[in-house]
């Protein structure tokens, strides 16, 4: 499993950083998604949840 993010699509809602701060963070300046761990090892369920909750469709899980 691999996570891909698209900061251009990101609306900065923070749902990903709220769901799993070990995998996702937010840019200090514009609040857009920062991917900390593209493999999300041990956090697969949370990463999928974050992708599902993302309001802007900016997170993709590639199996």
């Amino acid at each position, binding site marked *: 499993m691999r996570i891909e993010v698209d900061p251009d699509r990101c*609306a*900065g*809602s*923070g*749902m990903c*950083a*709220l*769901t799993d*701060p070990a995998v996702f*963070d*937010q*840019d*200090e*300046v*514009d*609040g*857009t998604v920062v991917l900390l761990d593209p493999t999300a090892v041990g956090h697969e369920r949370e990463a999928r*949840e974050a992708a*599902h*909750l993302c*309001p*802007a*469709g900016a997170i993709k899980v590639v199996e």
Partner: protein
Amino acid sequence: MTETLHPELPLERSSALDPPAELGILRETQPISRLRYPDGHLGWLVANHALARAVLADNRFSNRSELMHTPVRVGGKAVPPPPAAKPGMFINMDGPAHSKYRKLLTGQFTVRRMNQLVPRVEQIVADHLKAMRAQGPGVDLVSAFALPVPSMVICELLGVPYEERDSFQRDSKTAFNLENDFDEVMAAFERIEAFVAELVRRKHGAPGDDMLTGLIESGELTDEEVTNMGLLLLIAGHETTANMLGIGTLTLLEHPEQLAALRADPSLVDNAVEELMRYLSIIQIGPTRIALEDLELGGAEIKAGDAVTISVPAANRDPNRFDRPEEFDIHRPATGHVGFGHGVHQCLGQQLARIEMRVAYRALFREFPDLRLAVPASEVPMRDQHAIYGVQSLPVEFT
């Protein structure tokens, strides 16, 4: 698909904490149905979770004000067609115009920034609880606690002098009351706008460590843009959370076994907040979007120009998304609710709202272990005729 015409968006509730029963029937029988808008427009009503998410995430739907049809009457009359959004009023814009403004603010409302704010929110909450105790039993929890806490927080963030709150609190209340004449509502909005515009002028000479100053100093915005962005944050920042704190407290008091569980394990508060957002769904009107092209949605043929109103309360009680949706259960996984919306317009201040609610509920029920209603629950006046649902007042007792 059989089509029934629903003459108006259902707003009448038979139970204070539950959405209008008609919405539940629509969700099960016709999750997308025709809706007659007061201005004569024939549009649609979406009443389930999957379709609500689909519409709100689809950029073929617009939120531009000049295309809008309003699904409720204001002052008993249809709302006239609104003008295009003023510069900076990005909630009523689409695409790059919207994201240009939003991205100037999202860095200020990140999860981390909001977590850093917790100690200050705790202090504001503690001060108000102390003052509430001093007022004694019979005090109105809304005016002593639920309204002033988020008002003070957003004032400090924006750089609005809190001692000038009376006018904008009153105007904001007027602006969302559907029973008021439309002219009265517009005048209230204009007064808040003038208030923020004057503040922006003052900030040029007396900058502060606050968001309005930050926007001015970004050098990317006109004063008019800063004013409208500030106006949006000021109103959205206190009216919504204030109502959640009031009706959320009523909900917990009315579910003593849930409240006991929360008191026994305060770490449940994060989840309790999500569940309150789901269960209460205080945004009782809209959001509404306008189709920019012909498209198919849940078997319905939507035409370009059609208005589609989402029922947040119906979506958040969808049994296909939430088990036993009619039950208030602070243990359930409640994430995925659309209480903060969905799509690129999803609530900008949601992480602020979360920490305000977490801190406030935790402190309230810790400091007032025997908090109870001072009137029968059936006598608590509800905000049936407001765009944002809640309690008008909440008299409480304690020892």
